[in-house]
């Protein structure tokens, strides 16, 4: 199949999904729309496997692949002797033991064993022995190393893991009491996942990284691992057919490894775009958002009962067109768009109702409708568009609920004020209000919001505040209810940080005249944005984006000039900083060691939007919002 240059821009989501489907199809490439029923099978996974599959395949899609039952490895499972079982687990000691137990207990008809990351020889022998002992050798149909040890959340975004992420968290990497061996383990874990990522992507990158950081250690190890694999003629995972045959991109991608410590302000920043806001203020992970809704006052004979909170979960998926279109939009635009969608839906719904009433069929079911011959075509089209309408309504409800929840936070905490102020701090524009005023204002923001603001100020400021000033701030923060331990760590960090040249100016964020908002308010929108500033984001590059731009476009810049250069394909390990490749890259992967967030991701997406034919993927060792990050800073600040 010939794929054009645009398609060559690999969607990691697509690739990982294809790999999963192939695995579920008994490790034979899955052909879509093949006739005939799929073979029914059971899927057994551990929590790692579950986290990898759930953002990519819905329960329905699993069923389409023939999975009738999916179960956790470490659960009580009854024997189903006439059904094959597909396992998708990490090759850990406990997992191997349980699998051997399954074999001994003759649970299934046949076993397809898939390991998320490569299994060691000795563990493989353990399984072989268990199979022998259980006389089940013939039933073990296939054993595969899947090299899928990473989680893809978007077409162009991935995370290393969700379970055990404390083991490779920012804190784990930056705590002072770490030993050499512990650091090796952390780095090896990260490198293993990155290796899996490139195997799945089917490309061997050129690697660039900053010196003296965790990113460098990852780069050295990754280069070594890739190099060893390439030279292993028998087992190389990067042979021709996996290298995306049909891709027209002749150039290799660039991998930029950066350390979280180059920019601690962005993870603390208050944000204004939809997806980043959802991640910041709501309970959102692995593409699922959990809301608590108050269902209103209940009437009962005994009098009104207090509002009961019901929990709702929504999956924000690739098929959600509204989400795909607006996840990077500024919030007022989102609110307005939901409103527009609602209006257009109501118009369509009215049209259907009108047609129904014309036929004098108001309130009757579709069965009666379909029996009529006149105007059937009109009605058929109205009726057939009902599933689409229903889907549209579902999405409108979803986003109304989510956006409303977000808006409540914005209004209660005055997040627009924080966002605007922080943008000014980070872009070094003059501040119209004093920092102390905002911190002392009891109506604006939670203690955590204030702490975030102050930390951003402290991180970004040229001149560290004097002892006296600092004491004043500390007192104001403590009075506002803040815990000061994160500040302890940031102080230390600032003393050592490689503070590269100051972040480029963000430009001023101005409040646009009310035009856009007033339209929303006047049409009786449920999004009452009164008092909320309609802030417009001016596209400027965050530090990570800036670094990527320098390296991808081969620009000379003191910040990145001494970055190391690795090419695993080159025969001799070359430690020179001078890149051999002089042409700008078309494809790049940015990976942040130490954690990343949606603000950074969105900034990269916006940056690449203007560049034809270029493509970026964003990955990080863990994904945290400001609350989670502050918690880690706090732990690091405690001595």
């Amino acid at each position, binding site marked *: 199949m010939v794929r054009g240059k645009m398609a060559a821009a690999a969607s990691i989501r697509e690739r990982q999904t294809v790999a999963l489907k192939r695995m579920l199809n008994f490790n034979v490439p899955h052909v879509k729309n093949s006739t005939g029923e799929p073979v029914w099978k059971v899927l057994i996974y551990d929590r790692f496997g579950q986290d990898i599959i759930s953002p990519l395949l819905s329960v329905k899609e699993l069923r389409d692949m023939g999975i009738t039952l999916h179960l956790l490895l470490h659960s009580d499972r009854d024997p189903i002797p006439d059904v094959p079982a597909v396992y998708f687990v990490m090759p850990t000691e406990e997992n191997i033991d349980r699998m051997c137990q399954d074999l001994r207990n003759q649970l299934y008809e046949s076993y397809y064993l898939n390991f998320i990351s490569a299994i060691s020889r000795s563990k493989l022998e353990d399984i072989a022995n268990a199979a022998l002992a259980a006389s089940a050798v013939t039933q073990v149909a296939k054993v595969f190393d899947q090299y899928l040890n990473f989680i893809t959340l978007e077409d162009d975004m991935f995370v290393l893991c969700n379970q055990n992420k404390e083991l490779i968290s920012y804190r784990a990497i930056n705590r002072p009491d770490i030993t050499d061996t512990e650091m090796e383990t952390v780095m090896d874990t990260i490198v293993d996942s990155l290796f899996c990522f490139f195997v799945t992507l089917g490309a061997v990158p050129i690697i660039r990284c900053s*010196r*003296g950081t965790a990113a460098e250690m990852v780069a050295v190890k990754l280069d070594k691992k890739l190099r060893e694999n390439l030279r292993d003629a028998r087992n190389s995972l990067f042979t021709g057919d996996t290298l995306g045959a049909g891709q027209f991109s002749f150039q290799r991608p660039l991998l930029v490894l950066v350390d979280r410590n180059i920019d601690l302000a962005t993870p603390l920043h208050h944000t204004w775009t939809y997806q980043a806001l959802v991640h910041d203020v709501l309970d959102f992970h692995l593409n699922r958002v959990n809301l608590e809704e108050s269902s209103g006052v209940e009437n009962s004979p005994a009098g009104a009962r207090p509002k009961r909170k019901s929990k709702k979960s929504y999956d924000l998926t690739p098929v959600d067109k509204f989400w795909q279109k607006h996840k990077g939009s500024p919030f007022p635009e989102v609110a307005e768009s939901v409103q527009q969608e609602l209006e257009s839906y109501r118009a369509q719904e009215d049209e259907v109702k009108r047609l129904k009433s014309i036929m004098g069929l108001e309130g009757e079911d579709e069965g009666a409708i379909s029996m009529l011959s006149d105007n059937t075509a009109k009605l058929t089209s109205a009726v057939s568009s009902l599933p689409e309408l229903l889907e549209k309504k579902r999405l409108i409800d979803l986003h109304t609920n989510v956006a409303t929840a977000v808006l409540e936070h914005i209004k209660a905490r005055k997040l627009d004020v924080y966002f605007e102020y922080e943008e000014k701090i980070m872009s070094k524009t003059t501040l119209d209000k004093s920092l102390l005023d905002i911190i002392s204002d009891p109506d604006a923001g939670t203690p955590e919001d204030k702490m975030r603001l102050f930390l951003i100020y402290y991180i970004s400021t040229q001149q560290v505040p004097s002892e006296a000033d600092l004491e004043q701030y500390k007192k104001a923060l403590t009075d506002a209810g803040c815990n000061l331990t994160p500040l302890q760590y940031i102080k230390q960090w600032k003393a050592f*940080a490689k503070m*590269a040249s100051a972040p480029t100016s963000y430009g001023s964020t101005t409040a646009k005249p009310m035009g856009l908002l007033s339209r929303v308010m006047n049409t009786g929108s449920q999004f009452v944005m009164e008092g909320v500033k309609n802030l417009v984001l001016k596209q400027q590059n965050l530090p990570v984006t800036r670094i990527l731009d320098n390296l991808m476009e081969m620009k000379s810049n003191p910040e990145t000039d001494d970055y190391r250069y690795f090419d695993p394909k080159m025969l001799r390990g070359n430690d020179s900083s001078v890149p051999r490749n002089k042409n700008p890259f078309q494809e790049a992967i940015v990976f942040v060691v130490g954690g990343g967030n949606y603000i950074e991701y969105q900034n990269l997406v916006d940056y690449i939007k203007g560049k034809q034919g270029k493509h970026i993927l964003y990955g990080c060792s863990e994904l945290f919002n400001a609350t989670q990050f502050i918690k880690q800073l706090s732990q690091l600040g405690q001595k």
Partner: protein
Amino acid sequence: MKLYSLSVFYKGEPKVVLLKAAYDVSSFSFFQRSSVQEFMTFTSQLIVERSAKGSRASVKEQEYLCHVYVRNDSLAGVVIADSEYPSRVAFTLLEKVLDEFSKQVDRIDWPVGSPATIQYTALDAHLSRYQNPREADPMTKVQAELDETKIILHNTMESLLERGEKLDDLVSKSEVLGTQSKAFYKTARKQNSCCAIM
């Protein structure tokens, strides 16, 4: 209260030679440790360079205090501690270490020695033990003759420099600092805050 480094130098003319050093960088994060260590060596060396023979001094730099004792026979010791650590104990430690060193290592080896060639192994143990000043040095053992008025106090590293001399130049010319550490210093300096670590 904490000790970070303990080093022995020979104050030769014109160069100052590092003979032996011990470090405790365990309170710094993994990737900062080597740079911190290099900076401590650089700072210690600079201080010895700028201190006269037969003098004692304490140089303050942010939250750190560098205590130096240069003997009349050109043997010198520097201990870098935090501001809480009692300076009296620091000077006692220096006195003790230099005394022991001069007995164990031949004078003839001093001008040309380096950490690799010098046979003196007690430094790490001393650094470790003196982390707890009370345990290592009960009040009774403190040298009574130590005349504290003779200890020169410098409030910053800059006051050690000569007129027109810049710390930046010294950093770039230093053979002790690796490229990474120099880069650290350079960019921190740009931010108008004093030397990153020291």
